[in-house]
C-alpha cells in the first residue's frame, strides 16, 4: 500500500499548477465563464505543446503515453482553474474512442492531428437530455448510393464551439448505434449555443449532412460497448478534473471564512459556517479517493467498471454539492457572475449531467456489481 503520488506525478502536478496560475488566473477565467467565451484557442495550443492532448495515447500516434494516474494528476490541477476548453472532450474522450474503435489506418490519420491540436474532435452522443445511454441516440443514418445522409439534433454538446469535427453516435437503418466522424464545416450543420444555467454547451443540428462510409469508426462504426471501453479510461479523468475543481472551491471558501468579518468576528468562528466547510471537505475527499482507487484498479488490471461509475457519480455529486455548500458560506458575493464561485457553480451543474447523472451512474455501478436477471 502506498497512497502517495510518485515523483513524476508531483512534477506533472507542478507543471499543471504553474500553467493554471499563468494562463488561467481567476479574474480572467471568471470573465470567460461570465461572457460564455470558454473556448480559448490559445489554451489548446499551449496544452498541445506541453503534450496534454491525447496524453494517454501511445507516442506512435502523437500521444505522451502516460499512465491514467499521471494524466489524472494533470487534470486535477486543470480542474482547479477550472481550465475551460476541449482538453477532456477532444484530448481524452475522443482520443480514447478513436483509439479503441478505429482501424490502424484511421488511428494514424486521425490521432496525430488531434494530439497536435490541429483537429479538435468533440463527442456528440446523446439526442436527449433526460437520459444517457444508447437509448438516447436518435440521430439517423440513411444509406445512399455513395454513403449516408445524417439527420438529427444533438443537444448539450459540451465544447461544441471548439469542434473541427464531431464524433457522433447515430442509428443505422438496422437500428444499431454506430459512431462516425463528421467535419464540423459540413453543409447542413448548425451549432446553436444553449442559453441557461450551464456552460460550454450547444445544440448541434445535422440536417441532411452527407457522410462518406470511410467516416465510420472502424470497419463498421463500432458499438456502444466500444464507447464504454473508452469511457472506462476517460471518466476517471473527468472525475479527477471535478476533484480539482472541488478542491479549489474548498480552499477559497476556507480562506473566505478567515477574511470575511461580520457580527464582529471572522465568519469561520461561527459553527454553522464551519459545518458547511466540513460538508465540502467530505464531498471533496469522497470524490478524491473514489477516483484514485478507481484509477489504481484500472492500472492494476482489476475489474473496474463498477468503480468507474462510482467515481463519476461521487465526483459529480461532490462538485455539485460542494459548490452548493460553498454558496451557503459565500452568500451574496458568491452569486455575482463576476465572482469565481459562479464559474464553479455553472460548471458543477453542467458536469453533474454531462455523460450521465450521478443517479444514472449509481445504477450502472449496481448493474456491474449485481447484474439484473
Amino acid at each position, binding site marked *: 500500500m*502506498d*497512497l502517495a503520488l510518485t515523483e513524476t506525478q508531483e512534477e506533472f502536478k507542478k507543471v499543471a499548477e504553474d500553467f493554471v496560475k499563468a494562463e488561467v488566473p481567476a479574474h480572467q477565467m471568471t470573465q470567460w465563464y461570465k461572457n460564455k467565451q470558454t473556448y480559448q484557442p490559445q489554451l489548446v495550443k499551449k496544452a498541445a505543446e506541453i503534450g496534454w492532448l491525447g496524453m494517454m495515447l501511445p507516442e506512435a500516434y502523437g500521444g505522451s503515453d502516460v499512465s491514467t494516474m499521471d494524466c489524472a494528476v494533470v487534470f486535477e490541477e486543470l480542474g482547479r482553474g477550472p481550465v475551460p476548453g476541449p482538453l477532456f472532450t477532444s484530448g481524452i474522450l475522443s482520443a480514447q474512442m478513436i483509439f479503441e474503435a478505429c482501424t490502424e489506418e484511421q488511428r494514424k490519420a486521425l490521432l496525430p492531428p488531434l494530439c497536435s491540436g490541429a483537429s479538435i474532435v468533440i463527442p456528440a452522443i446523446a439526442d436527449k437530455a433526460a437520459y444517457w445511454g444508447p437509448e438516447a441516440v436518435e440521430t439517423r443514418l440513411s444509406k445512399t448510393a455513395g454513403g449516408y445522409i445524417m439527420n438529427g439534433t444533438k443537444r448539450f454538446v459540451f465544447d461544441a464551439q471548439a469542434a473541427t469535427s464531431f464524433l457522433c453516435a447515430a442509428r443505422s437503418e438496422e437500428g444499431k448505434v454506430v459512431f462516425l466522424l463528421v467535419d464540423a464545416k459540413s453543409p447542413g450543420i448548425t451549432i446553436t449555443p444553449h442559453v441557461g444555467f450551464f456552460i460550454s454547451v450547444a445544440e448541434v443540428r445535422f440536417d441532411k449532412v452527407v457522410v462518406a462510409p470511410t467516416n465510420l469508426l472502424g470497419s463498421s462504426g463500432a458499438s456502444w460497448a466500444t464507447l464504454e471501453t473508452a469511457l472506462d479510461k476517460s471518466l476517471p479523468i473527468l472525475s479527477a478534473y471535478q476533484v480539482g475543481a472541488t478542491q479549489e472551491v474548498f480552499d477559497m471558501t476556507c480562506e473566505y471564512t*478567515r477574511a470575511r468579518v461580520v457580527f464582529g468576528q471572522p465568519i469561520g468562528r461561527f459553527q454553522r*459556517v464551519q459545518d458547511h*466547510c466540513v460538508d465540502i471537505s*467530505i464531498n471533496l475527499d469522497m470524490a478524491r479517493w*473514489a477516483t484514485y482507487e478507481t*484509477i*489504481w484498479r484500472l492500472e492494476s488490471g482489476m475489474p473496474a467498471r463498477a468503480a468507474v461509475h462510482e467515481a463519476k457519480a461521487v465526483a459529480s455529486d461532490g462538485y455539485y454539492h460542494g459548490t452548493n455548500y460553498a454558496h451557503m458560506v459565500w452568500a451574496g458575493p458568491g452569486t455575482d457572475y463576476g465572482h469565481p464561485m459562479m464559474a464553479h457553480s455553472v460548471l458543477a451543474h453542467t458536469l453533474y449531467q454531462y455523460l450521465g447523472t450521478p443517479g444514472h451512474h449509481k445504477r450502472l455501478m449496481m448493474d456491474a456489481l449485481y447484474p439484473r*436477471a
Partner: protein
Amino acid sequence: MDFNVSADPPHVVEFRKEVAAWVAEQIKGHEHLRWSASWSTREDDEEYKFRRGLAEKLGAKGWLFPLFPKKYGGAELTVDHQMVLETELFKYGLNLSHTFYTLARIVAPVLIRWGTDEQKAEFLPPITQAEICVWQVLTEPHGGSDIANCQTKAIRDGDHYVVNGQKVMVGHHLPPDFLWTLVCTNPQGKRHENLAWLHIPANLPGITIQHMNLMMGIKNAVFFDNVRVPAKYLIGGENNGWKVASTHMELEHGGDGRIAVDPLIERVVEYCRSTHIDGKPIIEDPRVRDLIAEMTIELNTLRRFNQLIYWRRFAKKPHPYGGPQQRYYQRMLRLRNGERLQAIMGADALEQNLSVHEVIDFEYAVRTGPGQLHGGGTLDTDRLIFARRLGLGRPTTEKAPETD
C-alpha cells in the same frame, strides 16, 4: 498509487504463509464466530471466550502489537508484517484492534508515547499480550463531551492519589482489569492544566461498577469512593493529563485507521436476493437497488478513509483533519444506513437476530445509528475539532496530536 493491502514485499512472503496456516488452525471449529470489526455489547460467552483466547495466542507471539519492541510484548516486526496479520485475520472477519473487548489498541500506543520506561515495562506486556482488559472511563454525568471539565478528583496523599467521583456510559458487559481515566488533581487549577491521567487497577477498594442498559448495549457507571491509587499509576506526569488525553482522543476519534471492510452490505445483498415479492427477488427492484447503491458508495468511502488514515499513520504523514472527518462521516453514515435498512426490508430491519454477530445484525445496525452518534464526544465536537484543524476563522491551523 497502490491501494493493495496484500501486495507483499519479499520479506513477508514467507510470513504470510506462516500466518495463514496459524490463523486457519485457530479458527478451526469456530467458523461461525466471524466478525469482530466493531465493539461488541452482547452477552455471548462462547464468542467472548474464543476471541479472548485468540487474542492471548496472538499476544504470546507478539502479533497483537507486531510493531512494538519485544520487551513490551511486541514482535519488532514491520508495517508490512502488520498488514499481513490484519489481512489474514480479516479473511475470518477479525482484525487486530478488536480481537477482544479491550481498549488496548488505544491504551498501548498512548503508554508508548507518555509512559516512563518503568511504566512501559510493567504495564505494557499484560496489555499487549491480551492478559488483561482495559476500559477507558472518561465521560462524567455532568461533563458530557467537555471532558476537561473533569469533576472526578484525585488528590495526592503521600505515595497515593485519593480518587473520588463518577464516570458513566463506559465499558461493556464483562468486568475490566484496569480503568484508564482522566482525573482532576487540582480543583482550583487552570483548565487543561489541572488534570492527570491514571491507569487504575479495577480491583482497588472503593470502586463500584454498575451496569447501565443503553440504546447501544450494556455500558456501566463506575463510582470511585476514596479509592487509594498508588502514584506509580500516574501516566504522563503531574498535571499533564490533557496532553495524554489529546493523544488518546486522536486515536479514539478516527486517527488510528483500519484496513478492514464493513461486512454489512454483504448480508443486505444476501437478504435482497433471498427475499421474494410477487415471485421476484427484491434485489431486482430499482428502488432497492438505488438504496443499496447509496449504502455501497458510503461504505466504500468509509473503507477508503480508514485505509488512508492507516497509511498516513504508519507512513508518518500526519494529516490535520483525517481523524475527525472519518469519525463524523462514519457516524452519519451509520445513521443513514439504518434508515436505508428499514426502507429496504421494513420490520425485518428491527428484529434482533442473535444467531449472527451484532455487526451484521440489521437490528443492531438500525438501533446504533442514533445510539452511536455521541460515544467519545458528540458529532458537534467532531466538527468543532475538524474546524480548528482546518483553521476556519483562525489565522493558524491546529495540528493533529502525536499518536505514535
